[in-house]
């Protein structure tokens, strides 16, 4: 009995020592654990305050989980609010790829999506057998024991999910630490999103401002061009009128042929102004999204071309306008005022852009056209002028676009050819251009004879 009592007392004594040692060990381990958690919090904090892209910050957070919590791997997803899909942003440890099966997880599907849908963490130290962990074979093979998944919440709203797998159980302290850094990470994601939104808004605002400024600049250039172009014929008209007022005041003998020359000049300058004003009015109609209202009647293209050519020949002595008509008449249904303006634009351009003078050839013919049973009137206007640079040719019919070799040197509104294109198209016709910079330009207009 004594022996038994003795050995029992010794055992109890031994047990107390063991208990004390366990307590000591436990205390030491606790210390170690709290140190690890402090290190985790520090690393996560540092990652999130650094000035770098969000993905990079989150990657450092995931690395901190692996490093300090002995996780096998850790991942962080952010929620795309528009699509309600969790997008993988960071992956550290065993897996580091951001593509693959878990890179896009819709809210509500898989364990990650469920955490987001329920806005509740899912924690387990018994991965094998957990119905939420669908990859049981994989977990067994890799020896995964613990899983911790946390929703990242800002004011009860999900901004992302973080999760980790470990090969040994996670202690309650570790889980608490995860809960606390979850909050910090959520704040980091939200902060970044707000920042991105602000940047996006600023960018949009800047773009809108740039667009408005560009539109204003186009308008100002157009207004100064139009006022210049209208002042020029106005100068000629006003001057000629005043010349005759002065001559009348001086009671000079009336020279009828001189008077007629003056009146012709006034008529011709008035014609130029009318073309410009009509071009502006058509432009305004087109800019309001409406088609031009054509007034169609049967007209003779040969007669029209000859009339316009004669009127414009009177404005220049340096150019010779030659009209070659293959047939005496080409009848088409058309808007006589607008087609007159198309010819006037093409011919006055030919004059304007051949400042050194030269011959301008206009040919009129009637040809068979594709899918136009009655054929087409074909008008070709060729000059020997400055030509259009190849790079500008595709844009020469665009509103406000002028060839770069004349912009700033020869004034123009940049709307004549745009209107020509519109008018010809509304007649069911086509207009095209060929040009060689330095040698001249040819415009080719086809207008169907059967409308």
């Amino acid at each position, binding site marked *: 009995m004594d022996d038994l009592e003795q050995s029992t007392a010794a055992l109890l004594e031994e047990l107390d020592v063991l208990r004390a040692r366990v307590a000591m060990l436990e205390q030491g381990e606790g210390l170690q654990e709290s140190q690890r958690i402090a290190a985790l919090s520090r690393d996560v904090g540092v990652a999130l305050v650094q000035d770098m892209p969000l993905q990079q910050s989150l990657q450092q957070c995931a690395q901190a989980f692996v490093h300090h919590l002995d996780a096998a791997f850790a991942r962080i997803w952010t929620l795309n609010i528009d699509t309600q899909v969790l997008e993988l942003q960071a992956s550290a440890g065993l897996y580091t790829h951001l593509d693959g099966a878990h890179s896009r997880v819709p809210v509500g599907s898989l364990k990650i999506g469920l955490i987001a849908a329920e806005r509740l963490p899912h924690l387990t130290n018994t991965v094998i057998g957990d119905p939420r962990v669908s990859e049981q074979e994989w977990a067994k093979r890799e020896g995964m024991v613990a899983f911790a998944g946390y929703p990242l919440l800002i004011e009860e709203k999900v901004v992302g999910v973080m999760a980790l797998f470990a090969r040994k159980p996670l202690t309650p302290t570790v889980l608490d630490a995860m809960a606390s850094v979850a909050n910090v990470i959520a704040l980091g994601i939200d902060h970044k999103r707000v920042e991105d939104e602000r940047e996006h808004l600023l960018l949009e605002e800047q773009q809108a401002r740039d667009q408005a400024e560009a539109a204003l600049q186009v308008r100002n250039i157009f207004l*100064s061009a139009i*006022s*210049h172009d209208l*002042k*020029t*014929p*106005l*100068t*000629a*008209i*006003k*001057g*000629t009128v*005043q*010349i005759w007022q*002065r*001559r009348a005041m001086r009671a000079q003998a009336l020279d009828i042929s001189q008077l007629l020359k*003056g009146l012709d*000049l006034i008529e*011709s*300058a008035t014609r*130029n102004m009318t073309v410009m004003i009509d071009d502006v009015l058509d432009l305004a109609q087109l800019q309001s999204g409406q088609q031009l209202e054509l007034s169609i009647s049967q007209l003779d293209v040969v007669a029209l071309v000859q009339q316009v050519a004669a009127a414009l020949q009177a*404005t*220049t*002595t*340096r150019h010779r306008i030659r009209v070659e008509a293959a047939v005496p008449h080409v009848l088409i249904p058309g808007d006589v005022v607008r087609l007159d303006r198309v010819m006037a634009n093409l011919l006055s351009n030919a004059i*304007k852009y051949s*400042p*050194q003078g030269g011959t301008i050839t206009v040919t009129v013919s009637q040809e068979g056209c594709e899918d136009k049973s009655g054929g087409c009137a074909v008008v070709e206007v060729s000059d020997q002028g400055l030509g259009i640079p190849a790079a500008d040719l595709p844009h020469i019919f665009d509103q406000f676009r002028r060839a770069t070799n*004349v912009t700033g*040197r*020869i*004034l123009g509104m940049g709307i004549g050819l745009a209107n020509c294109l519109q008018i010809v198209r509304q007649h069911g016709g086509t207009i095209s251009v060929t040009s060689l910079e330095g040698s001249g330009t040819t415009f080719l207009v086809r207008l169907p004879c059967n409308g």
Partner: protein
Amino acid sequence: MEKDQHQSLLGARPTPEQILVVDDDAHVLQMIQWVLQDEGFEVQTAAEGQEALTLVRRHRPALLILDMGLPLLDGSHVAAELHTLYGTAVPIVLITADGHAAQKGRQIGASAFLHKPFEIADLVQAVKRSLTSR
């Protein structure tokens, strides 16, 4: 009073003074030609800068009426060439439609400037004053 004096002086000269007009608009060029011929001047015209340069090199005009916006060769080039050739002996009357006549006039050393559309009386006065103050 001074103007009448100049006119009488001008009338007394055996050969009329020659004025070169440079403008790329044929109507304006013709109109100014009529105005100056009515005032007894001889007029030469050029529709672009290169042609104007050829004319001033060949013969010194009494005065130049110059439009600034010219194709091929800008008006300021014509003015610069004129200064190189004849110093300030040939006054320039600047005519422009873009509203910056004063600034451009100073730049090229014009003796007078007019905004299009101008009064004929102002053009005549500018020409005569510029010729008197040479």
